[in-house]
């Protein structure tokens, strides 16, 4: 994966495959402390304890549990390359939370990439069935993108209408530029 936004897309696709209806993505760029934190939380079916121990092993994969593949191990590897950490917590039936940290200024830290395009991809294809919350903090600035409240604003307009998607893409890009 060339950047973190692609890792996010990949992990969130896991959440959707696990039946999640609410997915929260948080990116925190703390330049003062030189830490970049990525958190993804879902309310999918969760992973049992036995499987959880193996999920970042790239050679652990089973067709019965398609939720786990190379995706998590590649993100874990990306954190390692940038002197960061990787943590996954899960409760069967409740959901999964993944936290990845990176040394912000590390030369091998992957760029964040195009988060607007990742969110638009998710909203356009899954937004009618899944609610997404995206928080992006950079030092003391930040914004929240919450599809549940956008849906309320839209009322009868479907979230995946091409006009709405174009508008959301523009809005997200503007917000990200302001950071």
């Amino acid at each position, binding site marked *: *994966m060339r950047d973190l936004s*692609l890792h996010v*897309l*990949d992990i969130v*696709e896991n959440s959707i*495959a696990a039946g999640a209806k609410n997915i929260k993505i948080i990116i925190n760029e703390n330049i003062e402390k030189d830490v970049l934190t990525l958190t993804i939380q879902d309310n999918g079916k969760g992973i049992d304890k036995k499987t959880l121990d193996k999920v970042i092993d790239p050679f652990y994969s089973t*067709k019965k549990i*398609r939720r786990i*593949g*190379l*995706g998590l191990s*590649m993100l874990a590897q990306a954190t390692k390359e940038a002197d960061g950490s990787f943590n996954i917590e899960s409760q069967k039936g409740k959901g999964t939370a993944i936290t990845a940290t990176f040394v912000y200024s590390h030369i091998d830290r992957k760029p964040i990439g195009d988060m607007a*395009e*990742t969110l*638009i*991809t998710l909203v*356009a*294809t*899954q937004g009618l069935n899944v609610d997404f919350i995206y*928080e992006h*903090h950079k030092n003391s600035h*930040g*914004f*929240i*993108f*919450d599809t549940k*409240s*956008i849906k309320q*604003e*839209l009322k009868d*307009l*479907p979230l*995946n*209408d*091409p*006009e*709405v*998607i*174009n*508008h*959301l893409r523009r*809005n*997200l890009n503007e*917000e990200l530029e302001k950071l």
Partner: protein
Amino acid sequence: MRKLKIGDLEKIREKVRRTANLRQGKARAKITVHMGTCGIAAGARDILSTLLKEIGKKKLKDIIVTTSGCAGLCSREPMATVEITGKPPVKYVDLTAEKIKKILNIHIIKGNIINDYVLAIGSERTH
């Protein structure tokens, strides 16, 4: 913290009203972009976003764009499956932004399959 508002809502509402809305239920075609780890690493997001932008430009309201997991042919990613109502699904492989634009214009809009990009025609199962 500041919440992103959609703003300009009335303008969008008006635009959407002007173009007949067939999106809910009455789709003419469905395009599934394969978004497994392999697909994403090979550029599936760019394929999907090209598709969304073109659909937006052409104001096509009766096309569903969705995603699926890995179909087991990672070396042929990015892949997409096109289903036109009443026709067997067509699986396209080794996609680029240019190829998906052509698929949209020639297959989905005009109904002619682009054989050069096709892997298979017929039913599929994704995991």
